[in-house]
């Protein structure tokens, strides 16, 4: 591992040092990595020859930890993986346990779950938009994005009790009923955000400087996107149809009207456009559901101690960053024998080298911003 910036000489060429490759480190503490990611970059002049991620600075061994937690407890640990999609992580784990226990989730809980998922997706994309623009040098969007994100956080706090790692979903439904104020607050948010999302576009999307920084940068072909296992907006920007909500609908997604956003630009700008359009789709899903929450139970009747029958269970959901998978191997006991979290960020990061290679060092931050890396999700 390279600890310092150094010049690597090609052996045997006899060239002076100035023509060698330069190896530089970005991170682990670097503002643009949004966490603790260490990148070792080999440069020739300003051209990137290789990007090598070093992970593990926030590795907590969640998979091993889950092996000693019961099927009710392990769900709470998963909020700390992709903390911007914590509802959706919890959702995937609950679905996997429900699959094993054959629990039918009541319709009211299903709708509440989907509502929470989509609000989380909106909040996550807002943060990405603000922070991504800030990485590239535009500071204003950050304040706009956080103003709207704050409204979602307030909604979450009222119903779930927390603002970031909600731990609201339990096997069989949701933990508590929604707050009496929930619907009014969400309506207020929809009315507010509907006008603001156009403002987002005015601020950034058509900006010439921004377009120049994005278009043609970080090319990832459709075949490579599939081969690297990219999912979410990273893959959909390359024209790969991979939205789990559409392909394998869960909960009430099959009854909803929304489009899978596909772009064929294969560059950073395409990924940006996908996320911007996804925000509108999520807003439309929230609008469709908020007045149609059916009455009824919020939890199915379950036993106090869950014992998953011997076997293997896999559930897939779409988080804000892509496909999240939970693979549980059960031996019939009260704890999972083996658990694997297929995190979207891990696979998306592996394509970073492919996207950045041959480009300029100045574009690397733009590429990373448009993958939307969340480091705890990658390290687990």
């Amino acid at each position: 591992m390279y600890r310092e910036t150094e010049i690597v000489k090609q052996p045997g060429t006899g060239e002076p040092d100035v023509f060698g490759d330069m190896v530089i480190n970005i991170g682990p503490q670097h503002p643009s990595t949004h966490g603790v990611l260490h990148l070792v970059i080999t440069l020739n002049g300003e051209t990137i020859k290789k990007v090598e991620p070093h992970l593990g600075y926030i590795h907590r061994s969640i998979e091993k930890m889950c092996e000693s937690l019961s099927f009710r407890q392990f769900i709470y640990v998963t909020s700390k993986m992709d903390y911007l999609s914590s509802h959706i992580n919890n959702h995937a784990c609950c679905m996997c346990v429900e699959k094993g226990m054959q629990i039918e989730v009541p319709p009211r809980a299903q709708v509440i779950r989907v509502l929470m998922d989509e609000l989380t997706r909106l909040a996550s994309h807002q943060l990405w938009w603000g922070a991504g623009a800030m990485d590239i040098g535009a500071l204003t969007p950050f304040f706009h994005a956080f103003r709207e994100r704050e409204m979602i956080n307030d909604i979450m706090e009222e119903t779930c009790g927390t603002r970031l790692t909600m731990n609201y979903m339990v096997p069989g439904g949701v933990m508590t009923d929604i707050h009496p104020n929930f619907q009014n607050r969400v309506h207020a948010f929809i009315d507010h955000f509907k006008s603001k999302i156009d403002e987002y576009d005015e601020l950034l999307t058509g900006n010439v400087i921004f377009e120049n920084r994005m278009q043609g940068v970080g090319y990832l072909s459709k075949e490579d996107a599939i081969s690297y296992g990219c999912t979410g907006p990273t893959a959909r920007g390359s024209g790969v149809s991979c939205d789990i909500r559409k392909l394998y609908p869960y909960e009430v997604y099959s009854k909803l009207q929304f489009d899978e956003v596909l772009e064929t630009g294969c560059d950073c700008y395409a990924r940006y456009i996908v996320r911007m359009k996804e925000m509108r789709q999520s807003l439309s899903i929230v609008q469709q559901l908020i007045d149609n929450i059916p009455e009824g139970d919020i939890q199915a009747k379950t036993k106090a101690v869950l014992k998953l029958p011997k076997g293997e269970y896999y559930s897939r959901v779409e988080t804000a960053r892509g496909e999240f998978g939970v693979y549980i191997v059960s031996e019939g006991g009260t704890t999972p024998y083996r658990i694997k979290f297929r995190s979207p960020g891990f696979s998306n990061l592996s394509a970073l080298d492919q996207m950045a290679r041959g480009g300029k060092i100045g574009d690397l931050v733009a590429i990373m911003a448009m993958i939307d890396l969340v480091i705890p999700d990658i390290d687990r």
Partner: protein
Amino acid sequence: MTKEELKIKLTEFFPTATIEESGEWVNINIAPAGFHPAVDVLRNKVELSFDYLFCLTCIDWKTHLTMVYHFESTTYRHQLVVKVQLDRNKPEIETVSHIWRTAEFHEREVYEMFGVNFLNHPDLRLLILPDGWEGKNPMRKDFEDPVNMIKL
């Protein structure tokens, strides 16, 4: 392709492998020796074309290790779970990172966590664990670390 059609196709290509349907998807058990030619068939036969590897992991069964590969075809939208049983004392398997590029990172993770040696892997090094961890495999069932406790 439905599960039944997929099973019939798979029996044509792999007459010796055992095919079952224990979980959600079709499972196929392949011996380590036949693994390398088998993945080529899975990727390149037009009827199968499994081009998307969405999950690669390993399970420690205390007596042996099992590699688990989850494949999907983005053309036909059928899934397949490939399982390969490995010797726990000397786990070795051919890499698939030349076919599915995502495997490069996933295999490095399995290498450090379970100690599986991936033959012909382009860059088999520690990915998540810090330098000097070689030889200790935290995700194995018999791993104990009194200093950095993982088990709760």
